[in-house]
């Protein structure tokens, strides 16, 4: 039997060392960045921002562009409001909320217990707004796909969630203090892109906004 040269062992060991160091560095880097973002987020009490949403769905002949306003107040208050082309939205305060339809002026209260879809939506929005690292890393495989601007790509861990959404891309502002753009990619060609502008951190946001 031919003997394997000693140099081969050395090379193999060296390669393993390099690969594992790179993996460890990447993990350390991701953890550092996530922790950094989470620390910044912990200082955020309120967020107020305009947004432009582009909805690319095969069910529509054309891209639907909508605009609106988003508000958040730690730790469980949300307001997501469309201003054009529809005037719909919802506000959430804890586990109860209200949905409104600007076309007919109706307001419909809901609870997260009774509206599972709103429960999913609210849980996602709150986790992103407060950058709940524990929840996000539990639900998603997170990768840094660009460092400037900082861009994460999130892939749902749950198979059930992956049937609805394949990936989420989150792009932070240059100063990494707010989210600039979110892309939600579904299976197939459909995706939604939301761009946030005029973001104000820790500005005054009355509680009544969320009722």
């Amino acid at each position: 039997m031919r003997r394997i040269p000693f140099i081969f062992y050395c090379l193999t060991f060296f390669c393993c060392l390099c690969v594992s160091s790179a993996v460890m560095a990447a993990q350390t880097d991701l953890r550092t960045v996530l922790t950094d973002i989470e620390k910044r987020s912990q200082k955020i009490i309120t967020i107020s921002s305009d947004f432009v949403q582009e909805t690319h769905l095969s069910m529509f002949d054309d891209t639907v562009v909508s605009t609106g306003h988003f508000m958040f107040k730690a730790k469980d208050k949300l307001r997501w409001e469309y201003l054009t082309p529809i005037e719909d939205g919802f506000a959430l305060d804890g586990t109860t909320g209200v949905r409104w339809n600007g076309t007919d002026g109706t307001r419909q209260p809901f609870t997260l217990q009774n509206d599972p879809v709103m429960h999913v939506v609210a849980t996602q929005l709150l986790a992103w707004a407060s950058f709940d690292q524990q929840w996000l890393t539990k639900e998603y495989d997170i990768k840094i796909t660009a460092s400037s601007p900082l861009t994460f790509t999130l892939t749902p861990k749950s198979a059930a969630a992956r049937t609805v959404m394949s990936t989420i891309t989150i792009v932070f502002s240059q100063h990494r203090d707010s989210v600039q753009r979110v892309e939600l990619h579904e299976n197939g060609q459909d995706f939604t892109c939301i761009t946030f502008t005029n973001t104000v951190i820790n500005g005054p946001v009355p509680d009544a906004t969320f009722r």
Partner: protein
Amino acid sequence: MFDIFRRVYTILAPKKFFLLGACAVVVVVCGLLFSRLIVREDIRTMLPDGHTQVASDFELLSNSPFTQRLTITVSHPGGNPLTAARILADALQGTIFPQVVTGPATEISPVILTRLIHTAPGMLTANDIHTLEQKISPTRVHEALAKDFRTLVSPRGMALKKAVSMDPLEIRSMIFPKLAAAARLINVRVENGQFISRDGNHALVLADTDVPMTDSLGAARVMARYQQAVQALPPGATAILAAGHRHTLANAQTIKNDLKIILPASLVLLTLLFFCFLRTRQGLFVFLIPVAVVCIAGVGTSALYGSVSGIVLGFGAVLLGISVDFAVHVFYALRQPDQNPSQVLAEIARPVIFGALTSCAAFAALLLSDIPGIRQLAVFTIFGLLVSLTLSLLVLPHFVTPAPEITGHRKRSKPCRSPFKGGIIVVWAIILGTGLWFGAHTQINGDLRELGYVPADIRSDEQATRTIWGGMREIAIVFAQGTTLEKALEANDRVWNYLHNTEYAQKMVSISPLLPSRKTQTANIARWQTFWERNSNTTLATLAAQGKTFGFSTAAFNPFADLIQSAPQTMTAQTLQVLGAGGLLDMLTARTAGGVFVLTLLPDTPGTRHLFSPETEHTLSARFVSAGRFRIMLGHAMQKDVLAFGTVAFAAIALLTLILFRNFRKTAIALLPVGAGVTAVLAVMHLGGHSLNLFHIVAIPLVMGLGADYGIFMVCRQDAAFHHGTDEAVLFSALSTLAGFGALTLASHPALFSIGLTVLTGITAALIMALGVIPRLQGNRV
């Protein structure tokens, strides 16, 4: 006739030590067998059996998936109760708790919604199709598409896209209530797949066990396992338990603790009586008789039934304390100085035998009961009384010698004031009048919970559980029965249709809307297909035309076209499993040897109870079972038993007494202690604000039997040519009974206390009547 005892005495007298040896062997053998008896510790023996409604209701309740469930509330101030609940659930999971849940069987996810739409045709009723007809008008289609557009643009759009393309007209809105009807819970919200209280401070853990709630030994195992699991909770977290097993164990422990007080107290009192009344070594034989009797009666009953109930054994042993009375009378008679023992025996045998027969008759009335435990108790007691009678008349006399003259209680009869004329009528009128009045005004309580001891900590934990989660344990269950699941589902559909139009429609939990029977689904699907054969083309055309207004593509609703034009799927138990909702079906079905039951849950109120008459239940092939109705029915069964026991026992005692005396006056006098004893029990019950329960009912024949004994002996003493120490014997008998049973009033456990109170009251009244009133009515001796 009673001369036979003289001859038997004469025959056995030379062989008395052989007789003693033979008795000792029998008692030792029975003692050994007694220690190996198969003892069943199950409260079920104290519930009616056979084909009574109470019995079948209890059987159904026992088989429902909720009975064996432990409800655990987990709190963790400063921590996360959900995490603590999961830790506890993991620690509990195992052989004793095969199923532990912390969250609902299913959550309504968008994926489930999409799948449910495929099975919608089988679920939609005629009313739903009527609603659907309105949804396909151009105006309503426009409105629906406007809503769909808004939904797709909103953050919810991604989750609901498939549902919208398959169901643009929101047919799913007609399915939500059907799913909610099966998954409705009380005062609970769901967070991260776990049950949590409205205030978010408490999490819920539900642990199912196969150990019957009524099994006290099993309950000890369940509680030990629970206590072990609780140790796994993180520091600061606490758990509150509400479970029947906890009651069972607490009761068993309370009885043990009570016995630690009662037995020494009885022993002290009986020792005092011994020194006051008997004061001889021969007197010890009297006390040995009940010990021998319990062993022999236990073995005899077990031989007859195959096993013996622990409850019967416990109470029976207490009841057989009265078996000492026959020995006492024989002892006192034989201790009289200067008497021929065989002659005395022949004379005393008559009242002793009739006393035993009246006691047996009183207990034989218990054989009429629907409650197997009471029937077994009757057999056990009668067995014991007959053994005691035999030992008292055949064995004991050989070991009792006449006392020296100085210790005798011999008192020659002397003239007495003349009897109180019309006294018997007056006294009986008072007794009957009082007894009937109190009898009519005394309540009977069929609530089994009242028979048990509920410690303060269990009471407060159950109250806390009710406050946090609502009255989730106060539910009524409608059992829809069938030989197969399909047949049971058909019955369940009938129950749903019956209740659907009542005020309880929104409060009931039923699988029927989500999983109708195949028969119902076939009818629903036929209706759906007929509808779309008429309307599919126009509806699709309207959708296409109106959809352009909102920018929908021409292919946007192709899945909907497929849905209404293809053969619909039916919902089955397997489909529910695939949808992840199999837990709902498991929760709402029960299988027994008698068939399959599909359950509907309702609030347990007088209103819901009123909805289910026997005729309605027959029509629906369903049974309404609730703890509230169960209590009422058990109360009625007990009321029936009380009347039957009372009437039959009294009639039998009266007849035997009449046969003995062949004289109405003497019979009426001899029965006075019986009437006085029962009347006093009823009076004390009513005046003390108590209601009669199962254990009072068991104790009343004892009062009647002993009362009859006292009366018979007191009347017989008048006929005897000499004094047999009857007054002392009756006094000693009554005092020993009071010492044994009166001590039970020291018990914390309601069952022991009930028996103690009944006997204390009844025997005291009977004693006063026997020693205080009967001599005055007889008028010739004091």
